[in-house]
């Protein structure tokens, strides 16, 4: 029975396409436990058979069985032991029933039943049967996998581990060697899905040791200094030298080719081909360099020319790890008149090699080459990490994109992409130390008290640190004894006191008391959280961090569970910038934003798009939610708004004027703007594309799933890609027509695709378009030629009309957006369900139905502002239950 249950629950997500019982599956887990909890689920169902937790097939489909199936699968024949005559239409009647329904779905989807030589189900009947069955199977899966609200103890995920270490140690440590818990399925707060792998203990210990060393091994005050890099002595000088070298090499090649006696090696070439290649290639790159060296400003700074395959980089001095801290980058720079706006940004990075550097941000150069400006950029150098700060002009990440654009310009002007920026110098100043000695040292390793012996001293500090790390839970005596014993043995063995404490503290930060958020019960029955546990749950919900002093003092007073106090604290946490951790993590996972990074874009098709746009598109979503919280605006502004949150990069991309600076701010939109809200956000369109073309299917599914709270059943696996259209230039709408041909596809796509068509006025990168440009196919064998040439397009009229699930039709994007406003209750509901899952650390269950309804009603009573949803959840019984 258990095997079947697991198969049923599992296979709803992707039908496996077979009608045979799976053999000899290894059985894991406790059958007894499962039986109990299934029974309780069925009890709930029996008591409250509302539509929300029922999965009953309409009786009319029995006619299909009678007509096409019962010849073989009636009660007498039971071919393949399948009896459809006595099958209950209540799918969740019992597990075998649900299993059989899943098999029916799979075998009809796969075209296995009815067999080829038997009468086939008509397309209309098949489509209706599959539609009803697939949506009910999704519901049945929800009912059968309901955990009844049981929360599994969870460990800190990687984000939380990092934030928690930051709170304890006073700086943001590097945690990149820990496993990333963003699995792309469910939230990273779900305890049941957060695993502990075999070497994870060692990873925690190593991470914690490095972080502790960075704080405790500081002995000297870091000296602040200012280093100025004059690029005419570094980067620019190299370009001059490269020019001279290439000139010489060209002369050599010419000399070799003009004679016949001497071998190529005499001229410094490997062979004949090498010399010829140089002779042919050099003039092209020299044209770029000639344009460079003729510029007087190249002798007083560096011109951000397209050199080699990217613009030059100016690098600050490399630091060998050390204490880290705050730095200032000072750049004197100017842009060239007539240069495109989007190229007037400097990208600044930190890292070691070219491969390991991380982009820290972008800053727009506001002065000209004649009248340069000095820009100041505050940055942080992570402690204990070796690296350097670098700057260069904003550009495409992918080499082919850079080369392609450069070649286009070269074709026009004979030189290549002309420079947009000039940099006079880069100054790196720091580190700036706020307080010395670091107050954290006294916090972590205060000196021994008078008359305190070594053992008592160690015990006092270890107990204190462990209590803090364990979120005010006293550590176990035996644990402390062992830590003290280790400390003494190390200290007596000649290690200095701080190293010995690093060892003890690192073990505390790798022990289960720290790693797991534990909410033990008093007896066998579920109970209420005590105040300390409420504080922990609340702060990890809204900050992804441990409770701060104020929360802990309320715990001590015993007043946190007072509804008014709790409400006040919830507001305080939400208004604190630390709640950005909640906004980004929740929005990223709620809206499936990992899709945003899935595809690369080529400048061949989307020259306006680059990584700066991608980062800003993500930022828009987070900043919008932040804005709604801060300004107490209704959640529905995410469906439509007369403003966007934009920084200068995104404003350039959206062609909005007057936005200066890299921080996001509210920008009002004209009435006819397609922007504002998630439907107009570039992030949404990028996620609904493959990096080249828009995908009405992805966009339609995303809208159904996230805005209408009506997720389509998962696509059946193993459906072949539509390759028969390869080699034809067809509009997206024409391509999707293929979905209408098979009833298996049509039953879902007739709901999905029409929504996506309404968004066809946005390119894959999220820019507005009036025509759909589709690249003309290139005859096979011509791929190389195509890589160099500009793409040839065929243009199609866009037909943005379509319809929504309840049958509302729309004629264009604007109408689609307005009509989706009619689904604002569904949108709130979806938001609420995801909020419950994120906050409680377990999947949303059908038994949460009433909780979600209560939250939705309370929030509606308060104008649907986001804090109202959060208050209703925090004040609910479920939030306080363990």
């Amino acid at each position: 029975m258990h095997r079947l249950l697991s198969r049923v629950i599992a296979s709803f997500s992707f039908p496996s396409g077979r009608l045979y019982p799976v053999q000899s599956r290894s059985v894991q887990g406790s059958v007894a436990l499962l039986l109990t909890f299934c029974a309780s689920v069925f009890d709930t169902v029996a008591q409250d058979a509302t539509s929300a937790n029922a999965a009953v097939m309409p009786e009319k489909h029995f006619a299909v069985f009678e007509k096409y199936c019962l010849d073989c699968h009636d009660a007498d024949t039971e071919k393949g032991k399948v009896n459809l005559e006595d099958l209950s239409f209540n799918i969740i009647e019992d597990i075998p029933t649900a299993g059989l329904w899943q098999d029916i779905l799979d075998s009809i989807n796969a075209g296995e039943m009815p067999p080829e030589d038997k009468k086939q189900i008509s397309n209309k009947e098949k489509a209706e049967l599959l539609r009803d069955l697939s949506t009910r199977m999704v519901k049945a899966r929800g009912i059968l996998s309901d955990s009844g609200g049981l929360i599994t103890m969870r460990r800190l995920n990687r984000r939380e581990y990092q934030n928690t270490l930051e709170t304890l140690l006073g700086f943001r440590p590097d945690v990149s060697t820990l496993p990333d818990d963003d699995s792309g399925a469910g939230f990273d707060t779900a305890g049941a899905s957060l695993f502990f792998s075999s070497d994870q203990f060692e990873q925690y210990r190593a991470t914690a040791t490095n972080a502790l060393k960075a704080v405790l091994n500081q002995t000297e005050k870091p000296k602040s200094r200012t280093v100025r890099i004059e690029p005419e002595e570094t980067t620019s000088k190299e370009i001059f030298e490269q020019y001279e070298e290439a000139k010489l090499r060209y002369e050599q090649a010419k000399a070799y080719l003009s004679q016949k006696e001497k071998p190529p090696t005499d001229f410094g070439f490997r062979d004949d081909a090498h010399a010829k290649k140089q002779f042919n290639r050099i003039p092209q790159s020299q044209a770029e360099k000639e344009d460079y060296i003729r510029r007087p400003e190249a002798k007083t700074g560096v011109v951000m020319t397209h050199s080699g395959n990217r613009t030059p980089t100016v690098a600050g001095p490399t630091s060998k790890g050390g204490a880290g801290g705050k730095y200032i980058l000072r750049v004197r720079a100017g842009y060239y008149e007539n240069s495109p706006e989007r190229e007037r940004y400097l990208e600044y990075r930190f890292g070691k090699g070219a491969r390991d550097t991380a982009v820290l941000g972008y800053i727009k150069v506001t002065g000209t080459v004649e009248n340069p400006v000095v820009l100041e950029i505050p940055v942080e150098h992570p402690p204990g990490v070796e690296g350097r700060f670098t700057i260069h002009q904003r550009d495409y990440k992918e080499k082919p994109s850079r080369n392609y654009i450069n070649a286009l310009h070269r074709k026009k002007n004979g030189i290549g992409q002309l420079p947009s920026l000039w940099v006079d110098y880069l100054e790196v100043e720091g580190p700036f130390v706020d307080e010395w000695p670091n107050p954290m040292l006294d916090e972590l390793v205060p000196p021994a008290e008078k008359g305190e012996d070594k053992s008592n001293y160690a015990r006092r500090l270890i107990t204190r640190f462990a209590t803090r790390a364990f979120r005010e839970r006293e550590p176990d005596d035996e644990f402390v004894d062992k830590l003290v014993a280790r400390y003494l043995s190390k200290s007596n063995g000649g290690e200095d006191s701080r190293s010995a404490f690093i060892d003890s503290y690192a073990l505390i930060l790798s022990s289960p008391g720290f790693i797991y958020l534990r909410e033990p019960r008093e007896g066998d029955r579920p109970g209420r959280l005590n105040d300390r546990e409420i504080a922990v749950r609340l702060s990890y919900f809204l900050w992804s961090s441990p409770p701060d002093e104020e929360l802990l003092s309320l715990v001590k007073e015993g007043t946190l569970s007072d509804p008014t106090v709790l409400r006040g604290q919830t507001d305080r946490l939400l208004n604190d910038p630390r709640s950005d951790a909640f906004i980004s993590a929740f929005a990223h996972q709620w809206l499936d934003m990992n899709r945003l990074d899935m595809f690369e874009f080529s400048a061949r098709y989307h020259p306006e798009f680059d990584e700066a746009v991608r980062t800003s598109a993500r930022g828009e979503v987070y900043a919008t939610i932040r804005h709604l919280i801060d300004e107490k605006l209704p959640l529905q502004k995410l469906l439509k708004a007369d403003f966007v949150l934009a920084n200068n990069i995104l404003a350039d991309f959206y062609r909005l004027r007057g936005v200066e600076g890299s921080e996001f701010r509210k920008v009002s939109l004209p009435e006819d703007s397609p922007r504002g809200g998630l439907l107009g956000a570039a992030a949404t369109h990028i996620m609904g594309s493959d990096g080249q073309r828009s995908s009405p299917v992805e966009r339609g599914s995303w809208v159904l799933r996230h805005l209408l709270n009506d997720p389509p059943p998962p696509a059946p696996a193993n459906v072949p890609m539509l390759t028969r259209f390869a080699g034809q230039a067809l509009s997206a709408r024409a391509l999707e027509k293929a979905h209408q041909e098979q009833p298996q596809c049509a039953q879902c796509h007739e709901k999905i695709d029409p929504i996506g068509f309404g968004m066809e006025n946005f390119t894959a990168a999220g820019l507005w378009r009036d025509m759909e440009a589709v690249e003309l196919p290139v005859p096979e064998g011509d791929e190389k030629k195509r890589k160099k040439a500009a793409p040839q397009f065929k243009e199609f009229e866009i037909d943005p009309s379509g319809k929504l699930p309840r049958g509302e039709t729309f004629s264009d994007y604007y109408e689609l957006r307005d009509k989706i406003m009619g689904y604002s209750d569904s949108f709130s509901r979806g938001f609420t369900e995801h909020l419950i899952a994120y906050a409680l650390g377990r999947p949303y269950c059908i038994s949460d139905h009433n909780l979600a309804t209560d939250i939705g009603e309370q929030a509606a009573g308060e104008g649907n502002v986001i804090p109202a949803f959060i208050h209703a959840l925090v004040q609910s019984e479920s939030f306080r239950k363990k």
Partner: protein
Amino acid sequence: MKTRRYFLKTSTATIALPFLESMGFRRFASAASQAPGSSPKRMVFMGMGFGVTASEWYPDITTPGYDYKLPEVLSPLAKHKQDITIFQNLEHAHSRDGHSGSTFWLTGADRYAIPGQDFHNTISVDQLAAEQLGKETRLTSITMDPDNTNGHGPGSISWNRQGKPVAGLPNPVALYHKLFSGDTMSLEERQALLADDRSALDTVLSDARSMKKGLTKTDKDKLDEYFDSIREIELRISKDEKWLHVPKKKPTDPVKEPSQSLEGYPEVEMVYDLMIAAMQVDACRVFSYRLPGDSFVESLGSSYTVHNLSHHPGSPERTNDSKMRDSAHAKLVARFIEKTKASKEPDGSTLYDNLALTLGSNLRAVHSLNNCPTLITGGGAGFQHGRHLVMEKETPLCNLWLSILQGSGVQANAFGDSTGKIDELFVA
């Protein structure tokens, strides 16, 4: 009494502790007098993540058996057509992760087997084999994981008995040091270090025990993952202690420390060389590898990511680069075959004769999970090669894993959802 062992819950199948100066090690000392057929069996699993160019990689399905045309993209293996077997129609019944080429490839597990939990896995075939084959060697198994989950899916390619991911080594440099670099510390220092590690484990366990009170069944299961982790580290320390006195053996063809900068094709080439060197000194018998994706195709001159390549149908450029990647893997396997055929075992056989190497993935192409690409070579499991084996549709891939296990002398009656071994493999 409640000793540490008490809390390190013993699972149904206890992992055998390695024996000091084991048979395997003594065997080395007396290699010259070794009887034929006594060389150890070895296994290699190479996971290709996002899969292959499906339209090009498989032979014509209507030409099963010996008389088939090797597909163009596999032409680097032409010389070894008699040494390889290409399968069609092997798959895992429970696979549904369209971006996970490795996560369930060697396990066949059902991700959703536990209600209310969105991830579940079971032991992988390499780890099951290593429990037996790895007893006699310094390293029980080697998993290579170049920190690139793209196309491979979450976790690892290798999963332990608790269904938790086995951590891999990131690059050839790490593998080299693990296998061959000498110890700079004295024996006493190394012993002290291991003892210190043991005491650290003992310390955190006391905290773990204090946490048990008031936990529900599912909470306790979670905490058990922590105990399991500690237990595994303890086993490793025990093994390390037993091998402390045995110096690392150098292969006859000396290997140099690889460069840090190897990426993509040359990186895979180096890992293969090091695996072969490890076999030559019998430091390890079971290997698994999540082959690099993006860096691999980049090193071949492609400007696409492997994810974009997996969406190749319809795009001539992507298809072209995807084929290029497939051929490069074929070339590397051909080289592996040549090198292992040239390497003699003490009993006169070659490494090739005692090896079972599988190149494949849970993903075919795009996001399809059926007819998983599977190519196998080596004489270790007693397979008869040279054929294109077109199986019945939906034949469990686990039948192949079971065949490799049984053919290599690993005791197993079933594996995953296997329904039996693939008999064709054992008869010509």
